[in-house]
C-alpha cells in the first residue's frame, strides 16, 4: 500500500448564513496516496473546487480535518499555512494566472523567490524546470507570446519549481483542445508523477479520464463513488 499523502475526514463547508446558506461540501472523507493520480470529477457546482481548496490549505472548512503528511493543516497559523502551501503544494490554476509582464522563466521562479532563494539561483532552477516541461527555448518570452499548451506547461513548471509533494490541477484541460489536453496530462503522468508525489486533478473532461488512477465522483457536495481505472492503473 502506498504512503498516505492526504487524508480528509468529514469535511463540511457552507457559504452564506441563514436562508442564504449554501452547502458546498457535505461531510466528505477520502484519502489520496503518493504515487497516485486522483481525479475529482463532477458537474459544475458539485463542490469539487471547494474540496480541492480545503485540502490544499486555501479554504478553511467549517468542520472536519485535513491531514497532509501527518500534519493537521487547519490547526496551523495563517503564516504556517502559507508556508505549507509554498513548500508542500504545487498549484496549476485553470487560467494559469501567469504574470504577463514577467518572462516565462521569471514566472516559474516565483515559488523559489517566495522561498527566499537568491534571484539568479531561482532563475537557474526555473530554467531546469522549463527544460523538464520541454519549453526551455521559450524562457525569455512573456507568457502572452506562448500558445495555450505552452502556457499550461509554464504553469506546471511553476508548480514543480518548489518540488511539492502534492500537486493540484484545477481543470487543466479546460482551455486546451482535446489533443493538447491529452498530451499535457500524459506528460504529467509520465514526467511529473512519481512515488513521492501525489497529483489531484479536478476535471469534468472525460477525454482525460484514461490517465486517472482513481476517479472520485462528486455531486451536490458529496462523494457519489470512487472508481479505479485508467490506462496506467494496475
Amino acid at each position: 500500500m502506498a504512503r498516505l499523502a492526504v487524508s480528509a475526514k468529514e469535511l463540511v463547508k457552507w457559504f452564506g448564513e441563514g436562508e442564504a446558506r449554501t452547502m458546498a461540501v457535505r461531510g466528505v472523507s477520502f484519502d489520496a496516496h503518493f504515487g497516485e493520480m486522483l481525479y475529482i470529477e463532477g458537474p459544475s457546482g458539485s463542490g469539487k473546487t471547494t474540496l480541492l481548496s480545503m485540502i490544499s490549505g486555501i479554504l478553511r472548512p467549517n468542520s472536519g480535518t485535513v491531514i497532509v503528511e501527518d500534519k493537521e493543516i487547519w490547526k496551523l497559523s495563517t503564516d504556517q499555512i502559507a508556508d505549507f502551501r509554498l513548500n508542500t503544494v504545487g498549484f496549476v490554476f485553470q487560467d494559469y494566472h501567469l504574470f504577463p509582464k514577467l518572462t516565462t522563466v521569471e514566472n516559474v521562479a516565483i515559488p523559489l523567490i517566495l522561498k527566499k532563494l537568491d534571484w539568479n539561483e531561482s532563475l537557474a532552477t526555473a530554467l531546469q524546470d522549463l527544460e523538464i516541461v520541454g519549453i526551455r527555448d521559450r524562457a525569455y518570452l512573456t507568457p502572452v507570446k506562448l500558445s495555450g499548451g505552452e502556457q499550461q506547461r509554464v504553469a506546471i513548471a511553476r508548480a514543480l519549481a518548489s518540488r511539492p509533494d502534492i500537486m493540484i490541477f484545477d481543470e487543466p484541460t479546460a482551455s486546451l483542445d482535446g489533443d493538447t489536453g491529452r498530451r499535457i496530462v500524459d506528460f504529467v503522468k509520465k514526467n511529473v508523477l512519481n512515488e513521492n508525489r501525489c497529483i489531484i486533478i479536478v476535471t469534468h473532461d472525460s477525454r482525460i479520464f484514461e490517465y486517472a488512477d482513481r476517479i472520485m465522483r462528486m455531486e451536490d457536495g458529496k462523494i457519489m463513488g470512487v472508481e479505479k481505472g485508467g490506462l496506467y492503473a494496475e
Partner: protein
Amino acid sequence: MKGILKIAYKLLVNDKGKFAALLVGITFAVFLIVMMTSMFAGILHKSSSTVTNIGAKVWVMDPAVNTVASSIPMPDYVIDAVRSINGVKYAVGLYSGGALVKLRSGVYQSVTVIGLDDASLYGRPELIEGQIEDIFAENAFIVVKDAEFPKLGNPGLGTEFELNDHRGIIVGIAKVTTSGLFGVPTLYTTYKRAIQYIPSTRYTTSYIMVEPKSSDTVPYIKQQVAALGYEALTKDEFNRKVANFYKYQTGVGTNVLLMTVISFIVGLSISGQTFYTFILENLDKFGALKAIGAKGKELVSMILFQAAFTALTGYGLGVGLASLLIAVAKLRLPSYAAEITYTNLGFAFVMVLIIAGISSYVGVRKVIKIEPFDIFRG
C-alpha cells in the same frame, strides 16, 4: 534587492503604460508644488531684500509698516531717543524711498533710493567698482549691479542721469545679496542727499537701524522703543513680518496654497486612480501569489515598494523639471522670483509621500482582502 521586491519592480516598470501614467501624475504634482512654493519663497526672499542687504541687527519703524518699501516716516528726534536707550551701541537713520530718474537717453526709470547715514555709511553695500568715499562727492550715487541693472542702461563709473531736476553721477557699482521684488534698480547715496533730492516730509526718517551692545539688550531696547510708540524688530522678525504680510494680507499666500492643494489633488487623482487600476488588473495575480504561498506582509511590501518607487522617481523628475524651468527662466528673466529651498523640497516630499500612501492604501486593502479561493473559483 529582495527577490519579491524585484518581482514588484518588474511588474511595475514592465507595464510601461501604467508606469508612465503614474510617473506623469506624480511628476506633474511635484512640479506644480515645487514651482508654486518656489515662486512664493522667491517673492518672500526678494520682498525682504533691503533688510537682508543692509544687514542691521535691529530695525526701528512705525508699527504700521508692512513691507520695507512702504515705510512710514518717523520724526527724526526718535533717532536721538533710541540712541539714549541703555544697551544701544549706536543708532542711525536710513532713508528708503522710490524716485524716477531720467537717463541720458531720455528714458524715465523708477528706482529705489537708499540713503545711508552720512557719518557712518552704516549698511553700505560691497563695491565691485569705485571707492566708497566717493559717495560724499557732489551728486554721487552708487548703483547696484543686480538683475535690474540693465534698466539703467548698464551704467559705468561717471554715467550721469537726472533725478528730480538734480544731476546724479555714478561713482560706484555695488553688489548685494538679493535684488528687490518690484523689478526696479537700486541706488545708494547719503542720507542728506537722499532727502534733499527726493521731496519728503521734513525732519523725518524712514527707519532707524540699531546696533545693540549685545543680543541680551535687544528685549529691553524693544520694550523702550515700544514705549515711544514705535516698533523695534530684529532682522529676522522684520523679515517674518514682511513675509506674513505677503502670506496673509495680500492673497498671494492664499493663491499659492490653493494652487498647491490643487496640484496635490490632481497628482493624487491621477496617481491614485492609475495605481488602483494597476492593482485591480493584477489582483488575480496577487491572489495567485497568495495561493502559491506568499504571505500578506510580502504582498503589502510589494505594493508599498511599487508606490514608493513611483513616488520617489516622480519626485526626482518633478524637482528636476522645476529646477530646469526655474534655471531657464532666470537665464531669460534675471529678476525671476523663484527659489527652491530645502523647505519647499521637504514640503513637496511630504505631499508625495501622502499621495503614495493614499494610493497604496487602496491597493493594500484590495490585496489583503483577496482570497486565494477566489482564484480557484475564477
